């Protein structure tokens, strides 16, 4: 078992090394085959691991000691349990599909760049697996940094474009800010507990050792890390810009897997969060604010990938709302269903972009329904799923979060409901503008419209099926299910706050959300099936179109002062202080040398004088204290 788990992680690494080192040797076909093959091997092994966990429960595998000092010991351990095995399946499963899709999507690239793409993608899967498999926060952090790096590399994949490079840098820097919080939390744990292993940290004994301040600080610092990686306010602006990368990358990294790392981390640490009311409230408020903010922005965006990006941010906000109100399994449920339908949506969007020859503006699309039947159908399924229409998967996961939010505080639920309505609205605005009505593109584009190749449509279809039926793993009891996922995760989530809602209330909640979603959906179809959105007219419209001017605010409030400060450092501190110190040292030595040189007057008298003084000095050193001090002591007496 130890070897199988090891190989789950090693296959993608092998793929990365082979593709990275052999990028000039292999043909595109070989590259795509082996990249996809290794991830698929990982998927198979993950399935084995998953079944094993189902039968035998959680396992911890020790490989070697990563860091070993007298006080701190950090082993390189992997842990396979209910939570990580689920994530394994999602990562390798969706990863395999996206690799398959990429092999067709990226066919325009030359072989070395094609290999570079797959090498990065494999490295990403490797890092992500390390992140979820690690048995302590340090291994998680290694994976955490690894996925950040791969995200940077893939956003800036077309490195000749400066805008893309800037987007990559933005993503990386924003993630670094969050990583600092994560790192501080790890240090805090090491200082207070001397260990970072889950088994030793996440139990009642260590909770007893920590004061409530410690717990709050650790949980908030971890949440700062999650903010960066999972694109929450105020560190969310990198995610929409990250759409600069190839679309499958957006699907895999910036929708399905990497951005959910924050949710994974908090779910892992749920025992701490349950003990910190402050942290829970902060997580819930940040989550719902992000969900609403991103949803309002998504309503006015015209770039097909930007809408999906803001939708991702919004859905991540939902997941954090779930975490904040204690619905950990609900959040994980939403992670999984979101991975299905958002990957599907991105891949379908990629298929559209592919057909439109890299046109991303939905105002220039329209009427693609008949030209791209499979893409259209799968995209529609994805939209229905995300909008929360039963019995598609998004309904169940979102409903679970909303129910838990209602139990905690009805205001959360109400805000969540508004967000859900907006979600349905903007998703069907996107769908209607893209696929319904008349084609608004150029003649050349119209003549080239075609359905994507099989290797792109197969992943779409698989993901569509999963999006449609994925909710089955968490059907609540009142709908006749027994919530398999909740039971599955019960070993990880120590004390999930039980829902104290009567069945009537639950029915009402469900009915309200479904009704609102349907209404919003129908309004959107009615409004946008004939014509696209024009330029925003109202002040609010412009405000939303410009993304709440958040980027501009950051530019004014943070970047410009920092630049001015850097300019000050460069112009004043660098020139006067640093240069002054450096030049001053040189000048001091020069001056000293010039002065000391005068001592070499060449006159014998001075040499003799120095000789005598040196002899005196030597005597003083030789008979340092005793003889001489005793003599003077005796003299005085």
């Amino acid at each position: 078992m130890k070897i199988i788990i090891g190989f789950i992680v090693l296959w993608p690494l092998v793929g990365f090394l082979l593709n990275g080192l052999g990028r000039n040797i292999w043909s595109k076909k070989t590259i795509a085959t082996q990249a996809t093959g290794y991830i698929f091997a990982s998927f198979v092994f993950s399935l084995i691991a998953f079944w094993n966990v189902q039968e035998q429960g959680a396992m911890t595998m020790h490989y070697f000691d990563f860091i070993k000092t007298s006080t701190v010991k950090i082993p390189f351990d992997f842990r396979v349990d209910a939570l990580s095995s689920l994530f394994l399946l999602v990562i390798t499963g969706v990863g395999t599909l996206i690799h398959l899709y990429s092999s067709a999507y990226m066919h325009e690239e030359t072989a070395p760049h094609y290999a570079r793409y797959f090498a990065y993608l494999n490295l990403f899967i490797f890092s992500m697996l390390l992140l979820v498999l690690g048995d302590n926060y340090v291994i998680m952090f290694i994976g955490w940094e690894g996925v950040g790096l791969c995200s940077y590399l893939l956003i800036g994949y077309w490195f000749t474009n400066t805008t893309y490079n800037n987007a990559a840098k933005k993503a990386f820097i924003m993630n670094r800010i969050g990583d600092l919080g994560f790192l501080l939390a790890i240090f805090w744990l090491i200082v207070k507990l001397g260990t970072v292993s889950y088994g030793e940290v996440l139990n009642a004994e260590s909770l007893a050792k920590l004061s409530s301040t410690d717990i709050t600080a650790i949980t908030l610092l971890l949440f700062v890390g999650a903010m960066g990686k999972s694109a929450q306010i105020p560190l969310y602006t990198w995610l929409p810009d990250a759409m600069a990368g190839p679309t499958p990358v957006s699907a895999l990294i910036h929708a399905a897997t990497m951005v959910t790392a924050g949710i994974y981390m908090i779910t892992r640490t749920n025992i701490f969060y349950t003990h910190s009311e402050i942290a829970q409230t902060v997580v819930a408020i940040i989550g719902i604010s992000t969900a609403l903010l991103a949803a309002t922005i998504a309503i006015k965006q015209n770039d097909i990938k930007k809408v999906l990006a803001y939708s991702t941010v919004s859905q991540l906000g939902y997941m954090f709302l779930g975490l904040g109100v204690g619905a950990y399994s609900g959040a994980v449920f939403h992670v999984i269903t979101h991975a299905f339908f958002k990957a599907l949506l991105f891949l379908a969007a990629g298929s559209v972009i592919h057909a439109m020859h890299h046109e991303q503006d939905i105002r220039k699309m329209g009427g693609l329904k008949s030209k791209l039947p499979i893409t259209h159908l799968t995209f529609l399924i994805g939209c229905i799923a995300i909008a929360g229409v039963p019995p598609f998967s998004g309904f169940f996961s979102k409903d679970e979060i909303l129910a838990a939010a209602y139990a905690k505080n009805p205001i959360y639920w109400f805000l969540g409901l508004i967000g859900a309505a907006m979600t349905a609205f903007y998703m069907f605005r996107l769908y209607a503008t893209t696929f319904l009505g008349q084609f608004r593109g150029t003649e050349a584009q119209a003549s080239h419209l075609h359905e994507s190749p099989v290797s792109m449509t197969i992943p779409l279809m698989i993901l569509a099926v999963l999006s449609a039926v994925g909710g089955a793993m968490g059907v609540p009891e009142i709908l006749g299910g027994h919530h398999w996922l909740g039971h599955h995760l019960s070993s990880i989530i120590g004390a999930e706050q039980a829902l104290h809602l009567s069945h009537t209330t639950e029915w009402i909640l469900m009915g309200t959300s479904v009704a609102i979603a349907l209404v919003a959906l129908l309004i959107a179809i009615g409004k946008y099936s004939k014509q696209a959105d024009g330029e925003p007219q109202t002040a609010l419209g412009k405000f939303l179109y410009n993304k709440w001017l958040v980027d501009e605010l950051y530019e004014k409030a943070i970047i410009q002062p920092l630049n001015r400060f850097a300019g000050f450092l460069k112009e004043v501190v660098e020139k006067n202080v640093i240069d002054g110190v450096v030049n001053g040292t040189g000048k001091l030595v020069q001056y000293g040398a010039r002065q000391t040189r005068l001592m070499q007057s060449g006159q014998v008298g001075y040499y003799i004088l120095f000789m005598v003084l040196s002899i005196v000095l030597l005597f003083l050193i030789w008979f340092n204290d005793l003889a001489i001090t005793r003599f003077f002591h005796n003299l005085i007496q």
Partner: protein
Amino acid sequence: MSTVDILFYLLSAFAIVSATMVLISKNSIHSVLWLILVFFAISGHYILLNAQFLAIVNIIVYAGAIMVLFLFVIMLMNIKKDAEPQKQLLVKLTGVIAGGSLLTLLIAVVKQTIQIQGKQVLLKEGSIGLIHPLGKALFSDYVIPFEISSVLFLSAMVGAVIIGKK
């Protein structure tokens, strides 16, 4: 206090005063004369230590030959009385302080040295300073260095002539 002690102190004071006068005399001739007095005082010490041969040699070689040589040179150069340029006061002071601290330090060390505590010097008695045993030692055990020293003298003479001729 015995006569020997009195003689020792007298000679010591005489030597130190004369040596100081060598330093502070403005006139070089006077310095030479004071130095001759120092050598006489040291010869007196030799006699006190019953090192008669060395006392005589000291007077003949140093006070006689060497100092006369000095006198000759000074007269040869015809140096005027105040012609010698003086060093700066600060340099002089530094020199005095350096020499003084060397003296203090050495005395401090000597005072503390256990090996010589209470050791006495044999005065008036002992025959090793007389010509007979010294001559015996010089021409038996030390005959080769003695002969070599004549070579040294020869080379010094040749060197002096050559330097002087340039």
